[in-house]
């Protein structure tokens, strides 16, 4: 793949494995084994079976007719919100739990921001009967309380991350610290295309099912497997990478990644990483991250707990730098309005993360025969409180 990772874990200038020696054996074990394991026929059969019969894949590709009329193009929704647990996160969690089993791991740790990845991880651990510890920032635990309860009901232990800014990046730090202390029996299921190599590549491969299915479904429904545009929201960037993956080499397909501008890019309350960040190292990879001139990581802001990550995956940083994908941003207000619009025009209440991608439609102009695919990465149940407060329902 032209835009894939090289043998040292780099995408152009980005990636690598900037980890302390304490993590080296864990990460090296993964690096040596992940490709063999996931290309094994037995693994693939089990993965495909669970995706089909447990997750409910393939997720529908839905031709959104009222949206198509409104925006003057053929708009398709890739319905990851219909997956078991309500978002694309389950694809990666299933892949990694099967991998962890084959590595002989007895304990799973994960980080979570909005709670979607935590719920997905708790779910697959319950499925496999493996101990699960999820780290979650104290602030996120308060704003995503229903997901905390879901994880507990699924049998997971939720550990509050009370250091630093008490959100996703700190939950990630705590998970890494746990892994340092438990190097032999524990597998860390990272939830996005971030972290040291091989995580960005491994997670992208597990999420690539999204674009693999989309191509087939487009061919069936339109007679052409290639759309003109593919849109997805980006925090760390896992749904976007899954949605872009099989279109990367089709250079005519325009890829649009939508970041969270929060209260406005220059408001001081934003998570628009490519606009506000510089190159540096975060959570084990060289990427673009929001930071002070002194190299301290800046706490991002978005109303969406799944998008307020200070970095982006290294492959995204690369696609941004070489202009293979366009990176743009949407404010809280624009996203919430788009969430309401989608609810009332298509009968789909999207996650606020997803609503960012939907809001991008307002800023684009299409030709009538353009085909546009948007990844509906998650459902909005978890965000009802936020929607209700904003719109005063």
């Amino acid at each position, binding site marked *: 793949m032209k835009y894939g990772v090289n043998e040292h874990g780099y995408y152009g200038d980005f990636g690598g494995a*900037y980890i*302390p020696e304490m993590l080296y*054996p864990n990460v090296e074990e993964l690096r040596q084994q992940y490709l063999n394991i996931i290309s094994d026929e037995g693994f693939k059969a089990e993965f495909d079976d669970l995706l089909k019969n447990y997750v409910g894949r393939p997720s529908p590709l839905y031709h959104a007719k009222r949206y198509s009329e409104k925006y003057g193009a053929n708009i398709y929704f890739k319905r990851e919100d219909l997956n078991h647990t309500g978002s694309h996160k389950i694809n990666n969690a299933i892949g990694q739990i099967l991998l962890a089993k084959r590595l002989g791991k007895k304990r799973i740790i994960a980080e979570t921001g909005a709670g979607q990845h935590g719920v997905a991880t708790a779910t697959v651990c319950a499925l496999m009967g493996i101990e699960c510890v999820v780290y979650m920032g104290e602030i996120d635990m308060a704003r995503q309380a229903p997901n905390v309860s879901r994880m507990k009901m699924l049998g997971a232990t939720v550990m509050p991350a009370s250091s630093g800014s008490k959100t996703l990046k700190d939950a990630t730090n705590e998970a*890494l*610290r746990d892994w340092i*202390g438990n*190097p032999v029996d524990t597998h860390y299921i990272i939830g996005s295309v971030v972290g040291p190599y091989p995580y960005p590549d491994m997670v992208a491969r597990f999420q690539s099912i999204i674009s693999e299915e989309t191509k087939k479904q487009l061919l069936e429904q339109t007679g052409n497997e290639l759309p003109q545009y593919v849109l997805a929201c980006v925090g760390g960037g896992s749904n976007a990478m899954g949605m872009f993956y099989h279109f990367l080499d089709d250079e005519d397909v325009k890829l649009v990644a939508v970041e969270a501008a929060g209260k406005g890019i220059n408001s001081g309350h934003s998570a628009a990483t490519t606009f506000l960040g510089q190159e*540096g190292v975060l959570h*084990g990879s060289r990427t673009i991250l929001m930071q002070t001139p002194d190299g*301290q990581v800046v706490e991002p802001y978005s109303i969406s707990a799944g998008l307020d990550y200070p970095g982006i995956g290294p492959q995204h940083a690369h696609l941004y730098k070489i202009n293979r994908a366009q990176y743009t941003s949407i404010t809280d207000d624009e996203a919430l309005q788009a969430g309401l619009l989608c609810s009332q025009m298509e009968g789909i209440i999207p996650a606020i993360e997803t609503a960012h991608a939907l809001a991008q439609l307002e800023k684009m102009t299409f030709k009538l025969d353009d085909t546009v695919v948007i990844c509906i990465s998650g459902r909005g149940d978890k965000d009802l409180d936020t929607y209700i407060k904003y719109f005063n329902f």
Partner: protein
Amino acid sequence: MNRLNKLFATKKDNLLSIYYTAGYPALNTTVNIAEALEKAGADFLEIGFPYSDPVADGPTIQHSSEQALENGMTLNLLFEELAELRKRVTIPILLMGYFNPIVQYGVERFCKKAAEVGVDGVIVPDLPMYEYEAMYASYFIDNNLSNIFLVTPQTSEERIRKIDELSNSFIYLLSSSSITGGSLQLTNSIEDYYKRVNALELKNPTIIGFGISDNKTFTQACAYANGAIVGSKFVKLLAEDGYMEKIPGFIKGIRE
């Protein structure tokens, strides 16, 4: 030869290094603490520059980093303090911190500046061997800065040998795979690990760190290595009232 090389050439046993975070407990404390530690008998110092996301550190050093950042500590400020420090302190100084602040400062510029203000070595836990060798080693070597690598009980022999090759002052042996500030019980498996490393007959001296907090753990470590590093325990002392007066007693307590 930098000061570290000279130290290891003359003193082989019971070397004591102390870690503390620059800018903690307050700005402008870095130099005074260093001076007091030298007087009290520390052999060399590790001065941490604070980072917002110190993944290899436990709560004590995390807290000192947060406080130091709140106090306004930056690399620029630290380099100013170090220039002052070198007028009063002669023992070797290592800087310890995470890679991102160095990337922002510029790796080459960082190495030049560190050498210029009298730093002898650097410990960057999240700068791995491959990246160091492929991209940055020349900046360290050209500026006569020792880059210190960590070794854990899980590090393979092949990798330890490679680390030995790339090192030119000492190798930092972690007592266990853990974050900083843990407690240390000398178990058979840790002893076996120390013995395993000793049997490799490395060209570089070894210093043990993580979990070294008192005379017992220091003495145990020195039985297997050339010395040991005390970090979190000392950072805790800095939170106490009258910590400056307590430094000589603290060092004495580790040594005797």
